[in-house]
């Protein structure tokens, strides 16, 4: 088998120690694999996992539970989960065109970028959910 075929496994650390050694020796002399590593690393710089919009998660919870849910509790839960997610899963290809500069609601409620100190921002955004807060009481 052509050792170049192992390149994707090497990029994702899915080779055994022995195979990694072997592949690195190959990499030093294979311009095609070197280019591919470079491309992969460049793309990886903008890896990102997108979170479902908050209102969609609320809809899911509403459709799968009879219990009324306080938006505040939900926001807290999501923030916690977002922080955990950011710590653990900050590697994901964005395979679509994101437009982070467009402050539409979807991005506004996007959970993963929320950092620990941004509770105030969340509360500001949640005030826009006033109708829902009334509804959920």
């Amino acid at each position, binding site marked *: 088998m052509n050792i*170049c*075929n*192992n*390149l*994707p*496994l090497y990029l*994702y650390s*899915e080779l055994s120690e022995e195979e990694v050694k072997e592949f690195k020796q190959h990499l030093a002399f294979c311009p095609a694999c070197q*280019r*591919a590593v*470079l*491309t*992969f*690393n*460049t*793309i990886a*710089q*903008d*890896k*990102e*996992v*997108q*979170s*479902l*919009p908050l209102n*969609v*998660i609320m*809809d*899911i*919870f509403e*459709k*799968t*539970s009879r*219990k009324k849910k306080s938006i505040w509790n939900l926001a807290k*839960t*999501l923030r916690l*989960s977002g922080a*955990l*997610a950011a710590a653990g*899963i900050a*590697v*994901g*290809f*964005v*395979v*679509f*065109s*994101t*437009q*982070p*500069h*467009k*402050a539409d609601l*979807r991005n506004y409620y996007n*959970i*993963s970028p929320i950092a620990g100190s941004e509770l105030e921002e969340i509360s500001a955004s949640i005030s826009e959910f006033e109708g829902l807060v009334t509804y959920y009481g």
Partner: protein
Amino acid sequence: MDKKLTDAQLVSRFKNGDSKAFEEIVLRYQAHVYTYILSIVKNPDTASDICQDLFVKIFRTLHKYNEENKLKNWLFTLARNLTMDYFRKNSKRLVPLENQDEDEFSLLDTISDNSPSPLKVLIENAQKEAINDALGKLSMDERELVALKDNFTFAEIAAMQKKPIGTLLSKFSRTLKKLRRILAQRSPEVYNEYLQ
């Protein structure tokens, strides 16, 4: 709820009537599954709809699900099936999306952003835009493989899709080559800086 519960434990708690267990499953997987679906359909509203369908379906059928250890595989397989159903139902309208150009990058939107360092953000956004633009030019299959790779090993994907692992490896390598070509053509500034 204890965040360290395994999928199997969550499924078993759910079967025993613990409603929090389902919420935990949603929170654990929503971003991964949403990102995956979005990579295929490229439309946030459509991806949100499919994701919602997916979790409601999971909720309704989880009680009869017996392979607790493969919850993640089941989620992604179902996500794929629902997405393909969606394409079938909307084929006329949606198929051209594959090669459709995304919205123009808007300079004004970026400048009006409340960022502490507008110039840095501008450069980062332009670069991000270029890379996402290139990823968006891939075929649906290629985008899907790239998205799946964030959640599964090549061996796992081969088992799920019942394909030889060698086929997936060649496809992934071809995809990297294609991305390089697209960046060279469409975003020479990124290409020259990182890929020369």
